[in-house]
């Protein structure tokens, strides 16, 4: 490549189009960028396609690849979804999951907004260490905690109650949200708060009237992220909830719908599809917030 660029003929081409290299021809671009990208997208999306197509296939097609092309449906059916909604407790599971996700999101937003404000704006001796401590809490994985936490939940008399999940989920939501919000608070000019202080506003008024309205994008990011994480949480929900009605969607599909030796793949995939839809919808509405919060949290 170095040799090619050094030749006078090629350097002419390169200087004519400064943005693209001489070798950056169309064919090369297709093989180097578009083809691999297409493969990535195909592989990343295929399980969802498979999930969706399975949930609308009648059982006869589902288990017969010889006569029906498995990649397509010849006679779509809503039987699996109907079975799910009317013959199982699926609507209850959805409601419980929604309740838990919304509850824990609000609890962790409340706690982490106050904490982030204290750490970033009320600067006190040792505030960086408190921030670091909260950050380290994020590195403690739930797999280490769920056994002792189960005994704590039993001690509190919260076993088999969705309330337990609302109280426990903030352990991984608060560290994340706090760090995200510290970053947002940093971006708000301190002068604004000083002006308000000079005008006689109290600290809490400043937080409510000035800092929070300016940090709304950060709050939305933290909120949708918390919602998604608590919707997806599995191990705590599996360990702390026993009765069928109180289960969250991911746990319920795995423990209540997988029965016996013959798997109802249609119903299982329909359940997975319906359980993924709320977060997927949420995601499609707030894509930019997701990307910014994911990358923002990593950069901090």
């Amino acid at each position, binding site marked *: 490549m170095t040799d090619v660029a050094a030749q006078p003929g090629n350097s002419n081409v390169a200087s004519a189009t400064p943005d693209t290299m001489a070798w950056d021809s169309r064919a090369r671009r297709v093989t180097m960028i578009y083809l691999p990208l297409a493969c990535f997208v195909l592989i990343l999306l295929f399980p*969802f396609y498979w999930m969706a197509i399975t949930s609308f296939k009648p059982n006869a097609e589902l288990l017969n690849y010889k006569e029906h092309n498995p990649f397509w449906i010849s006679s779509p059916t809503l039987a699996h979804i109907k079975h799910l909604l009317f013959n199982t407790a699926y609507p209850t599971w959805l409601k419980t999951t929604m309740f838990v996700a919304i509850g824990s999101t609000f609890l962790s937003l409340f706690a982490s907004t106050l904490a982030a404000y204290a750490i970033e704006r009320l600067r006190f001796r040792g505030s960086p260490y408190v921030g670091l401590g909260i950050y380290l809490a994020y590195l403690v*994985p739930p797999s280490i905690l*769920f056994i002792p936490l189960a005994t*704590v939940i039993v001690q509190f008399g919260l076993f088999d109650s969705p309330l337990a999940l609302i109280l426990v989920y903030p*352990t991984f939501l608060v560290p994340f949200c706090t760090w995200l919000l510290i970053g947002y608070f940093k971006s708000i000019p301190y002068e604004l708060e000083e002006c308000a202080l000079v005008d006689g506003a109290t600290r809490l008024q400043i937080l409510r009237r000035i800092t929070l309205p300016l940090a709304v994008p950060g709050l939305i990011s933290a909120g949708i992220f918390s919602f998604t994480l608590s919707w*997806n949480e599995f191990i705590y929900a599996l360990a702390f909830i026993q009765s069928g009605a109180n289960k969250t969607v*991911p746990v319920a599909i795995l423990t209540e719908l997988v029965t016996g030796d013959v798997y109802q793949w249609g119903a299982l995939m329909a359940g997975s599809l319906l359980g993924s839809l709320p977060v997927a919808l949420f995601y499609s509405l707030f894509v930019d917030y997701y990307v910014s919060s994911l990358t923002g949290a990593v950069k901090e």
Partner: protein
Amino acid sequence: MSVTTLPSRGVALRQPGWIARLLDYKPFLIVMCLAPAIGLLTVFLTYPLGLGVWLAFTDTTIGQRGIFIGLENFQYLLKDPLWWNAVFYSVFYTAIATIGKFALGFWLALLLNNHFPLKSLLRAIVLLPWIVPTVLSALAFWWIYDPQFSIISYLLVDVLHIRSTYIDFLGTPWPARFSLIAANIWRGIPFVAISLLAGLQTISPSLYEAAMLDGATAWQRFRYITLPMMMPILAIVMTFSIIFTFTDFQLVYAITRGGPVNSTHLLATLAFQRGIAGGELGEGAAIAVSMIPFLVFATLFSYFGLARRKWQQGEAND
């Protein structure tokens, strides 16, 4: 009504009550603001962490308070072939999955860093596997890995005619191990790609222009500009990835539950099987605690091994 309240409000503003003054007293305010977060984390994170270590040294079972038995749980684990099996698979799973995720994720990030139409849509699609509940996509993988109706086997046998028999993905140990790793890589690529893409976008284009003027090849530009500039963010993303891959639970529990013949148990699933399903809380806690040294080692290794580059470059590069 309004006549009587207005003056009193004015007085209250000039001379705030003791509650208002207390709320404006900085040390009190700091304690108040930190209390919910620190309280939640102490009760449901720090305390259980300590309790977990304590439980590991007791013979607690569900419904029965245990007594201190010293290192007996750990001595038992060291003699337990299933525990060694889980340690081996956890390390193997983490190593292969991390290599796969970072190789493919970095590649995807480099691809996404180019200019092409519909870029933001594509970025949104790519993140989808990471957004959807892991257990639910794991179920889709379970169905894809079905011994009789696997779509991969169908493709290989009936469409492409590469193989003559259907693959038994989850029925035998090694195929099951690699099937789980493939599912984990699939789920991990988006997180790595999007995080690294953010890092790539912070690299100044002038560096590449300077290198191109000096006649650097595409590989040289990657090796001497992209890679060193990405080291700090790579270190952080890799630390996270290793921690959460090593302690993974959902994928294995959803697809194989540790089978066939316990060959795909990770330490987390083994801890669940012994601790919650089996009721031996003490032993389960010991298995969970035995993950901690691996985690500390992996964190230190990935963080300091990669982040050292940052110190060599000096502070100015931040």
